[in-house]
């Protein structure tokens, strides 16, 4: 069975960032690093959030020197506790889906930035590590980005989906080929 992943339909994506905000909130609640794990990317070709493809032979997992990234539960998992922040995974990722960030632990009250004097810009328990999509594995409701999107542009693709779509497309391809050879409308 293939790994699961979330993909966005650029025809529907508004670039409104709701998925990113929900991602931060959901991980913050769980005590994980409070940063987005998907990135709304504007381009003249189209706009959509870019995130981990949960590659079958994931280069990030291959280069990780401490085995913090492993492939299990049909996904590519990063253990935030083991990660040493060496950045190799971010370099290896072909989609730019891993960032290196650090947030204060939830027990530390973050100062509002506009009040902070530069001398006081110090954060207790700050740990900088690799951050990547975990499909909200800890959440029964599944990936929050999928749930909150106002236009339903995102969807979770599970193991069987790719094969099912390919079958449909192959069926379509046959109809097309038959039409050409018979010289008739398919």
């Amino acid at each position, binding site marked *: 069975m293939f790994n699961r992943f979330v993909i966005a339909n650029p*025809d*529907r*994506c*508004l*670039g*409104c*960032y*709701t998925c*990113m*905000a929900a991602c*931060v*909130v959901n991980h*913050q609640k769980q005590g994980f690093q*409070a*940063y*987005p794990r998907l990135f*709304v990317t*504007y381009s*003249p070709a*189209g*706009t959509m959030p870019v995130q981990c493809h949960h590659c079958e032979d994931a280069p990030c997992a291959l280069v990780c020197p401490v085995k913090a990234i492993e492939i299990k539960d049909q996904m590519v998992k990063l253990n935030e506790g083991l990660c040493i922040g060496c950045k190799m995974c971010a370099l290896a990722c072909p989609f730019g889906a891993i960032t290196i960030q650090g947030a204060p632990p939830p027990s530390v009250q*973050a100062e*509002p*930035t*506009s*009040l902070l*004097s530069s001398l006081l810009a110090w954060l207790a328990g700050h740990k900088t590590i690799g951050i990547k999509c975990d499909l909200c594995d800890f959440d029964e409701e599944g990936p929050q980005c999928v749930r909150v999107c*106002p*236009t339903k542009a995102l969807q979770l693709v599970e193991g069987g989906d790719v094969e099912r779509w390919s079958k449909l497309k192959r069926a379509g391809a046959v109809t097309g080929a038959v039409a050409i050879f018979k010289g008739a409308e398919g």
Partner: protein
Amino acid sequence: MTNSVPEIGQYSDVIFIIGSNTAECHPLIARQVIKAKERGAKLIVADPRLTEMANKADIWLRVPAGYNISLINGLLHIIVKENLYNSDFVQNHAEGFDEVARAVEDYTPAYVEKLTGIPQQDLVEAARFFGRAKNATILYCMGVTQFSYGTGNVVSLSNLAVVTGNMGRPGTGVNPLRGQNNVQGACDMGCLSNVLPGYLAVTDEKNRARFEKEWHVRLPSKPGLRIPEIGDAILNGRVRAAYVFGENPVMSDPDSSHLRHAFEHLDLLVVQDIFLTETARLAHVVLPAACWGEKEGTFTNTERRVQRVRKAVNPPGEARDDWWIFSALAQKMDYGRMNYLHPQEIWDEVRRLVPEKFGGISYDRLEKARGISWPCPAEDHPGTPFLYEGGKFATASGKANLRPVFFDPTRLPEEKVKQFKHALAGKITELPDEEYPFTLTTGRRGYHYHTGTMTRKSWPITQVTPQQLIEINPRDARKLGIEDGDFVKLSTRRGSIAAKAWVTERVPEKTVFTSFHFWEANVNELTINSTDPVACIPEFKVAAAKVEKITPAEFQAILQEKKKKYLVDLEEEVAGQSKSGRREAHV
């Protein structure tokens, strides 16, 4: 809005979005646009920036900032010439069609292309889509209104809708997308300098009498000052005290350094807000107010829908509902009639005073219905999701009044205006020149809200949009040696700010864009206080600017300056080292 939001997804065949970054600023309305598109509706977007709506449009008209009137007149020209107008509607429900038709004669596709660079074919195609649509709707926002000729822009759009008969039916109309949850409600309640609640002009004695009877006071018969006029009025000594609530004008008003300078000359500045805003930091007295989740009442949204709001949590500390603070102040000033106990009493007073609009919208009904759109004159009236049904307009004759609108970027086309009875005209106040070669245009970014008073306190939102960015076209960036992420200084004749550059095709050449969310680099220090003669709205959307690359050290120095400016000496004061004794604030 003349029409309601769900009509877009359900009925509109052509959607014309102009001057609105709908996807980022009104995502739930953009959702309706996507729904309509998936149903087969055509999307036309006019915007200088490649916003996500422009990216998804069937036709994107890349109109330079400020040239909307030329574009709309161009559309009208084609619609008249190719007989795409609705002659029945124009004859029976409108006045002044012939004048408008004559006024747009010069705006040929070739002339519009010369002026705006919009390819003739695109303009013709857009006009044909709009003219042939069964139900065409216009959505617009601040990219239409925030000009010294904003009224002219809006009038042109209503000309377009009326000439094609797109009024008074579901999925049509001229729809301003309002920016705040209750800005429509605030205007409905008379938070404008020239009207009483229900848009009743203060200059009319009958209107005043209606309210004087209930309130037992004499009401002023002359309109008051408008916000952009306040700065000069303070410096002239006409205004000595200001009471600011629900606004952060030292961040949000044009040429904000001038306004800040004026505020320093006030005898008394009172600021009532939910947080200690940049304006509140200048105040003599700060009154803490409750926020939306902490109070009862109603909000009226962009589609005129009055909705019940319920308290979720109690306000913190000494914070109180705005209405409670106003009432308490009134009592202290010996006016005893504002002794309300609940917002429902105030709403019932509004219903009594303006029954023609709000009479039928009772709290009882609001408890059951998910909001009711005004006008709703009686308890058995269903409300009015769309206005002007059957082509009946709220004018003396009951017909729509069309008015010719002219535009010339460099000078007011006065000789043309003279040829018509009710014509409007506009020109850009500050065009780019050799010293300031860029056009600066401003707006919002996804997820931050206005001056950031609320959104900058949220960690998740700060992660989505952490800092100010100045959008600049790759060609311009290359010429100036600027790479994506470099620090740049953006200046106009009024000041300068510094931030990182975002090198992107989103902005056209010779145009830069940035937002007013960040005090570190607040674009309103740069905008120009040139206002519309009718509505007094300032020209936030065009000013002449220059861009220079700076070093990180120079950026740091500018940042320290801004920090001093906006945070005042708050940190020292909190540490008990208040020097001036000026702010004895209750925070």
